[in-house]
């Protein structure tokens, strides 16, 4: 790829933004440039990234899912409740994770039915299921805060891959999740780029009618997409519970802003058809950086949401401008072609 194209890529802009922001924060407070800060950003990105990968797939397919936070906490909270009620092996990590993923897929299947079978617009469908899922959880699963989560999950919160104590400064701890999360990220990337399912998702985002004429089943693709988001959200939910060392059914609500902002900042087109895993990873890191460290710039915590919201709007505006500029360039190209002839 030539240099000009590389520079114009969304990912490049994000890297530049991350670097500039880091330099500004670092100049204000030198303690920013420590391993501990870096590892903290990673830690706060794990759950967000899992959600974001799911949302990326949905957005590329031309849809949107706003039910993922409730699917996440529903799955995580329910897994803990089930563990306790049925006296399952409290030291196990695999059981609650598997439970949460299965519950997440099941909830995703409900979205799939609403969207693929009944043809309800994706935003409305997932907004509706958000309410349904929340009501069901609070009524039938529980509405109380659980602080004594199963031991396996609790211990996992401090399962560190690396512990480094620098000569000066605080202890830096890198959570072991960095490995599985990296693997999952790579798998989603391969899923999108190397499988027919992945390409069908892009095709669907590019045009429904053309995709149908290709012989790709729209319904089946959509159904898989929302189940995949459900599964990823379930996993994100249980990891959230583990990392927080508590299961609170009221948590995660409102996190859709951060996640959708991260995915759109990462270059996914809200109109569908475009988006990359790498961009999404960078988007998540940028949002984590802002949320965790704006305070070092003397900006109060309450401004964080405003900052993230503003970033979302900036990203969408940039997309729209880029789109119209592209259209103009296209015209010039055809004129040049005509001139050559």
């Amino acid at each position, binding site marked *: 790829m030539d240099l000009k194209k590389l520079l114009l890529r969304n990912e490049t802009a994000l890297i530049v933004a991350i670097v500039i922001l880091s330099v500004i924060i670092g100049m204000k407070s030198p303690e920013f440039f420590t391993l501990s800060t870096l590892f903290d950003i990673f830690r706060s990105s794990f759950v967000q990234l899992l959600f974001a990968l799911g949302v990326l797939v949905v957005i590329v397919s031309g849809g949107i899912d706003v039910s993922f936070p409730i699917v996440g906490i529903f799955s995580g909270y329910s897994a803990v409740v089930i563990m306790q009620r049925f006296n399952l092996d409290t030291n196990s990590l695999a059981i609650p994770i598997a439970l949460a993923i299965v519950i997440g897929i099941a909830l995703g299947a409900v979205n799939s039915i609403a969207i693929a079978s009944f043809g309800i617009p994706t935003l409305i469908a997932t907004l509706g299921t958000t309410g349904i899922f929340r009501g069901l959880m609070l009524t039938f699963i529980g509405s109380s805060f659980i602080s004594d989560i199963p031991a396996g999950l609790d211990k996992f919160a401090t399962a560190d891959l690396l512990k480094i104590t620098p000569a000066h400064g605080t202890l830096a701890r890198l959570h072991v999740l960095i490995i599985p999360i990296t693997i999952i990220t790579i798998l989603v990337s391969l899923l999108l780029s190397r*499988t027919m399912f992945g390409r069908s998702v892009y095709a669907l985002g590019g045009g429904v009618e053309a995709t149908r004429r290709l012989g790709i089943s729209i319904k089946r693709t959509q159904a898989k997409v929302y189940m995949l988001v459900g599964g990823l959200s379930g996993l994100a939910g249980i990891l959230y519970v583990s990392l927080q060392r508590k299961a609170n059914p009221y948590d995660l609500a409102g996190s859709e802003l951060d996640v959708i902002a991260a995915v759109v900042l990462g270059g996914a087109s809200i109109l569908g058809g475009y988006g990359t895993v790498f961009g999404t990873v960078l988007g998540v890191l940028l949002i984590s950086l802002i949320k965790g460290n704006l305070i070092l710039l003397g900006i109060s915590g309450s401004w964080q949401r405003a900052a993230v919201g503003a970033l979302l709007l900036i990203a969408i505006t940039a997309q729209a401008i880029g789109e119209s500029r592209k259209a103009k360039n296209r015209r010039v190209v055809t004129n040049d072609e005509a001139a050559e002839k």
Partner: protein
Amino acid sequence: MSTVLTSEYGVENIVKSFGGAKALSGVSLSVQSGEVHCIAGENGSGKSTLIKIMSGVHAPDSGLIRLGERTFTELSPREAVQEGVQVIFQDFSLLPNLTVAENIALPTYILRKSRFLSKAETKDIAAKALELIGVDIDINAPVAEISIASKQLIAIARATNLGVKMLFMDEPTTALTRKEIKRLFEVVEQVRSRGVATVFVSHKIDEIQEICNTITVLRNGEVVADGLMKDFKRDAISNAMTGINVSETRIAPELKKSEKKVIDVKNLTTKPTFSDISFSIAPGEILGVTGLLGSGRTELAEAIFGQYPVNSGEIHVDGKKIQLNSSSQALKAGIGYVPPDRLTQGLFLDQSILRNLVAVDVDQYKSSGGRLSKKRLAEVGDRWIKDLRIKTKNPLNPVSSLSGGNQQRVVLAKWLAMNPHLMILNGPTVGVDIGSKREILEIIRDRAQEGMAFIVVSDDIPELIQICHRVIVIKNGHISKEFSEAELNEEVLYKELS
């Protein structure tokens, strides 16, 4: 004596009704492999229904579908593809966000029922498919960034790649320039020579005469004529299609001598799109503007209407200089503009015919207090529907319920309702059938007689000759030549264009 083995593709005695309406009543069609067959017919003649039956979208009520050795009473879309039937729709059904390579290769993977795909193989499949039809296009480019002509060729490459035996092309030349059409015909010839039964659906008579060996003419769901192309004269085809004598003689009204100028364009320049464009138009004059796609003709039309940026130059309307780069100023000065793509630019498809008719100048229909007067609206709507012979039962039906020709009339009516001094029509009859086309040209003529000036931008040379007083040819953004009324004939215009 040697015989060439050919197979036969087509239908026998197909009947198909929708609700009570018969779309096809006993249509038979036979296409040999290695020939280019034309299906001609007006909108609503049953062309699309026939294509849909052969590609498995609709099942016929009765009749047989013959594909080589095999006969079917109906087909599923998958069966149709497996039997080698491919349709290239007018929108090409390509995915703009994927690369050329992926667009060509994806159906191959789908047919193979693969779960995975590799980038290298995708490119390989695409490169081979393009090579097969002798076309060179960058396979790594996203489809969104390539020209319409290239998209068409990609759609053909994709079809041939799927082992096509019968290829339908639905109005393939609508958006192409002369040069691109020539290239398309070369590719069609390639495909034909490899034994594909090619079906060309079109109503552009020049083109079907050039490329097709045999022809079937449909009207109201019946075959009204068929046979060898060479046995058909131009008039015979259009008469068969319309059932009436449609003449293609000149209808431009006599131009009254006038010193007045409705518009005076001086040295209009936007580099590199066009430069130093100057011309003026008298009241009642119809000026034709033509040029290849990309010559700057569309941009020029948009620039006069203030929609395309102008770097320098002057435009005077009725002697007064108008502000450039502002379509609201152009509107105020009395310039109207009908864009070429009525579907995306000119109409609100889901809204009623009436609402579309009054959309340009809603203020006219306000009653006191600023509310829209329903009665005024209905009067205006009825008048236009009658004046322009728009065929509809109810003006409250959505525009999308109308045929292409009638939609175009709604666009025209919408703008004529403002009574502009100068009307710019960009491709006024694109995708419109012959009967409607004539009527649209007659509408232009009638208005011109009343003194309205027109700029007709088109690449349909016969149409320009029928209606225009003068034609200017744009080449690379310059006026390469101007033809006066006496000089207008097809041969010289085509020559100047190519």
